[in-house]
């Protein structure tokens, strides 16, 4: 019996069968969250044209999004390197308290207080990073532990809100509109996000972070100092949390216990919403921004509508599940189309 050989079947690669449906599904899976955001904007614009669709309201939404966007971007960094930071909300609250304390009790000038605050936040981030990489404590435990401790330390520092003795100019930081008539927090957010985006996508250390996140062992063998990269990511998260805390204190005009604790869940929701954007299951700054905007637009639109209060959590939970679910389903069908 002889071997029966069929001549090489395909010399020229066959043109890829790309159906219209498949393209649409892929689009939906990539841009599902963005489409969701645009639909929401559209819906509110049509139904509340005068109120929702105004420059003032858009600036308003951006202002509100800015603090969450900053802290969520820091969180994004830790997720990019495959870790986790549950302390960010507590860090923001703690630093927000300390920064006002430095002005009110120690009489530090504004700039110095802020520098100290940001340094403190970064330092706590470094501590988290050291615990995770050097002591090898699971990130959930170490960041939750540190965060919980900060709550107590903050209480020791000042149980009562620090409201007097804060220079008026400090409040001005978040209320002012220095550039193009845009609220300062928006400008700060844009600058921060651009910086974080650039570092993550256009520099050595950003590439290394992504490498560590995608395959830690391979990154180590490629000569990357994995521990340092992770510590850097935690430090960035700490820095961003401190910045958010500082801006919050400036916005509130006082340092209040636990004021920023709530950012934790919002930041998580935003970052995971964002991870369903563009690239599947990857964390990135653009996605995080989309996630933050979805939450902010939803909050703003619903309150403009005067939706009953219980509707707000139902909507918020629903949008999380729907936006991500839509992308996920589209991805599944695209894969089998």
């Amino acid at each position, binding site marked *: 019996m002889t*071997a*029966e050989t069929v001549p090489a079947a395909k010399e020229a690669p*066959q043109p890829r069968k790309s159906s219209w449906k498949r393209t649409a599904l892929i689009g939906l899976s990539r841009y599902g969250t963005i489409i969701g955001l645009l639909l929401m904007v559209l819906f509110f614009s049509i139904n509340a044209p005068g109120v929702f669709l105004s420059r003032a309201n858009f600036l308003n939404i951006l202002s509100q999004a800015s603090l969450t966007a900053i802290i969520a971007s820091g969180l994004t960094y830790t997720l990019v390197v495959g870790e986790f930071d549950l302390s960010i909300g507590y860090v923001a609250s703690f630093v927000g308290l300390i920064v006002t304390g430095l002005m009110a009790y120690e009489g530090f000038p504004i700039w110095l207080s802020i520098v100290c605050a940001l340094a403190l936040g970064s330092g706590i981030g470094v501590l988290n990073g050291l615990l995770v990489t050097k002591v090898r404590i699971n990130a959930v435990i170490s960041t939750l532990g540190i965060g919980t401790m900060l709550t107590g330390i903050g209480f020791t520092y000042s149980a009562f809100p620090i409201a007097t003795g804060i220079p008026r100019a400090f409040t001005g930081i978040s209320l002012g509109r220095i550039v193009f008539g845009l609220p300062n927090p928006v400008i700060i957010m844009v600058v921060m996000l651009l910086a974080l985006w650039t570092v993550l996508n256009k520099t050595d250390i950003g590439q290394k972070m992504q*490498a560590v996140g995608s395959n830690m062992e391979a990154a180590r063998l490629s*000569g990357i100092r994995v521990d340092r990269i992770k510590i850097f990511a935690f430090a960035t998260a700490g820095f961003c949390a401190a910045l958010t805390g500082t801006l919050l204190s400036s916005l509130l005009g006082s340092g209040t216990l636990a004021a920023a604790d709530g950012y934790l869940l919002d930041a998580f929701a935003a970052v995971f919403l964002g991870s369903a954007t563009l690239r599947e299951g990857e964390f990135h700054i653009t996605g995080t921004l989309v996630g933050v905007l979805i939450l902010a637009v939803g909050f703003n639109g619903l309150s403009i509508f005067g939706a009953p209060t219980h509707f707000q959590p139902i909507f918020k939970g629903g949008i999380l599940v729907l936006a991500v679910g839509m992308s996920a389903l589209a991805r599944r069908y695209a894969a089998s189309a």
Partner: protein
Amino acid sequence: MSATVSAADAWMRIRGLTKSFAGERALDRADLDIERGRVHGLVGANGAGKSTLIRCLAGVTTPDQGSVTIAGNELQMGSPQASERAGLAFIHQELNLIPHFSALQNMLLGAPKTTRFGMIDWKRSGVAARAAAERVGIRFPLDTKVSELSVAQRWLVMIGKALTRDASMIAMDEPTASLSEPESEQLFAIIRDLAAQGVAILYVSHRLEEVLQLCDRITVLRDGRIVSQAERGALDKKGLVRAIIGHAIRTPDARDRLAADRSRQPVFSARSIAWKQAVKDVSLDLYKGEVLALGGLVGAGRTEFAHLVAGLARPEAGHLELDGKRLDVANPSEAVKAGIALVPEERRSQGVMLQQSVAFNINISTLKLLRSVPGLPFLSDAKSRRQAESLVAHLGIKTPGVTTKIAGLSGGNQQKALIARWLNAGTKLLILDEPSRGVDVGAREEIHDAIRALARSGVGILVISSDVEELTLLADRVLVMREGRVTGELTGADITEARIIELSYHDAHDDQGEAA
């Protein structure tokens, strides 16, 4: 496809099996008949669709079209349970064990015998597993955790697991890729034995010698289609290679081996390196331009030695020299800085960053060279793309583009990308651990060419391979290790499969087949 050699009433009939991934055909109208009591070989280049076919049979991939009938009954597609009920057992290509389960638990996973209330009857279920373990030649206690086993031992567990299933067909996807000679021989004996008992075997391998030796019939897949089928003896190796890749490859039968110039200073030396029980008093010199290979059985300590050199662990005794200077590396980062690079054994878990692009994977160790302005950390996209494209061209990596995700490349091309990673990194010593594991014949030849070219360009090359044929094809000089020691050195015409195997067993006659 015209009528094949099979009878119309074959035991298992696969008809028109088709599967696309993201619009790309991985399997294209495949027809195949499988008889009980025969060993069916399935060969083809990386990405030809072999594993896809097996995964369709296993019910873990649902085909787009096509049917499978077993003894006249149609097999329900896309259900692992249905496949199991039909008496099909599988050894899949990737190691699929639960690390913190014992070997026994792993062997019983998915089909443990339970008593009332769903409690597991370990005693009763243990019997079949023990018998299977005996048969495969597992010598370690079955309650050992899999995470404590060597790679080869894990494969034995995988094989044992398939044997506990009382199957009427066992499909094996590259079971020998991580085994060395003795374990492979034992597996072949088992396969023949099973076939004699009427079990059908579907056998996938890139090691063509063993396919020719073992299989009653060989089916060749190319680009998802069955392009050729042959009964035992109808094909020789050359013919098989031609069927697989569409053309012949250059056989380096009478190749010159470079004799090391020992008068010159070695590029790299190890002096009495020792670490735990794994590496004992290893010394070696590597000279400019040569390909030095480490041979030996699986578990001989070669990977550990490579790890010591690459800074993953610190030697407990001895020292290393690079270009005549003493070297003390505390971590891989320092090793890379000094010019030592490792292309690791476990490509998936230690080598490639699967969700990242080809360019990302190639450029990751040379980021400093890709800055827009030296001294500033900003990278130039243009430079990155240029470097990646030139390396892709240089090594002949087959990819639609450098921005393609590396996960979409075949194993051989992923491996080439990992080698490319080190070409511009100022590498003085490149260690390649099992560079062609799971790589098809064509790609293997291309990888060998790349390795030789690198060596001639002055990079010190240390290759570790358990594939004896590969050692004879590639190495200028072979050191054979056994149980952490170097047991012999082979040069020039001495580098033959027989000599290597002989040295691998050097003074170890009484415990052949040892797995660890």
